[in-house]
């Protein structure tokens, strides 16, 4: 894993190395309360990362929201089970884990749909005394619907650090990310608190 010499905000590494950082809280690449960018080079890498982080976060009394684009909801459940998340169904039933269709979240009514959903979960998390909410949202639907301007507007509307106990991991398949202009890519890398690029 390499850290950009000019900034520790861009971390590059293979998916196993990155997924391993989920195990120890102090080594986590996903800072609590941050707006983080994740660029994954294939679906296997994304699975390794979201599943290991979900496992760790659930065990730390967090609520996890996974917005999936290229994998079915059942596929995500299976991935979590294989990654060792204890009793996925119980987490789903108790509302400590949400697996949603990111395309519906971002495109059904408005691009902030996922965000609003995460905020409603945060409100419940507070009432229940949870540590916080971490959301992984795949941005792929903005590309397939050719809504890049909306995507940029949405991303730039979110701060690098939240004043609340919510953490968002905006997740991009590399093949989608590469369709952005270099300037757009750089804007996104610069705007997030930390950017994790799987190589």
């Amino acid at each position, binding site marked *: 894993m390499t850290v950009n010499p000019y900034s520790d905000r861009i971390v590059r590494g293979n998916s196993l190395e990155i997924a391993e950082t989920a195990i120890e809280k102090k080594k986590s690449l996903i800072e609590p309360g941050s707006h983080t960018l994740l660029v994954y080079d294939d*679906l*296997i890498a994304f*699975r390794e990362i979201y599943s290991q982080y979900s496992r760790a976060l659930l065990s730390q009394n967090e609520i996890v929201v996974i917005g999936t*684009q*290229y*994998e*079915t909801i059942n*596929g995500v459940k*299976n*991935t979590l089970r*294989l990654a060792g998340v204890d009793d996925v169904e119980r987490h789903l039933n108790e509302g400590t884990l949400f697996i949603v*269709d990111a*395309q519906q979240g971002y*495109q059904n009514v408005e691009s902030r749909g996922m965000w609003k959903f995460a905020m409603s979960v945060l409100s419940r998390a507070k009432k229940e005394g949870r540590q916080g909410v971490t959301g992984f949202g795949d941005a*792929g639907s903005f*590309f*397939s*619907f*050719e809504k890049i301007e909306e995507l940029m507007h949405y991303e730039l509307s979110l701060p690098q650090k939240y004043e609340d106990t919510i953490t968002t991991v905006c997740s991009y*398949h*590399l*093949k*989608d990310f*590469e*369709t952005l202009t270099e300037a757009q890519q750089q804007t996104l890398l610069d705007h997030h608190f930390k950017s994790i690029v799987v190589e």
Partner: protein
Amino acid sequence: MVGLLLSGNNDENFYRNNNSASSSADVILSKQDAGHHTKNTTDDGDKPLARLLIVDDEYDIVQVLKVGLQQNGFLVNAFTNPQQALQSFKSNAESYSLLLSDVRMPGLSGMQLARKVKETNPDVKVVLMTAFEIKDNEFSKVFPSTQVDGFIQKPVRIRELTDKILSIIGQSDGGSDKED
């Protein structure tokens, strides 16, 4: 692994894509499905029913679809990379009858691919498949000028898929069992 042999009802064996953790959807190929248009298979030198372009970013699904539809008499060109599929299509656009594509693919979605294919050859039929909920108006809202000829919900049986394709390209044989 392309498939796992599962025991089904009525002695019917199903080959199901078993990469459950990595797969976004299943394709089901039964022994009875394969070759139900065997008189037209390309393997025995007969003229193919039609040439199909198949695109899905899941390798296993592409393989199962390719094998099943070839056995049912189609000439199939299959890709996991939609950009490569488009390049191949453009090099011989007139020879294809139908595009069968997954909807959700990174880099170039099935909807975008469909539009580019139709721009190159408007006569090509387009069938989109997805494991997610199908909302056909979602497509027409985003790409109103691109006509999609059919949607398929995954998982799908090869036999149903074959019949759907034949009906869309206008070669329905009026009964899928008559050659079994």
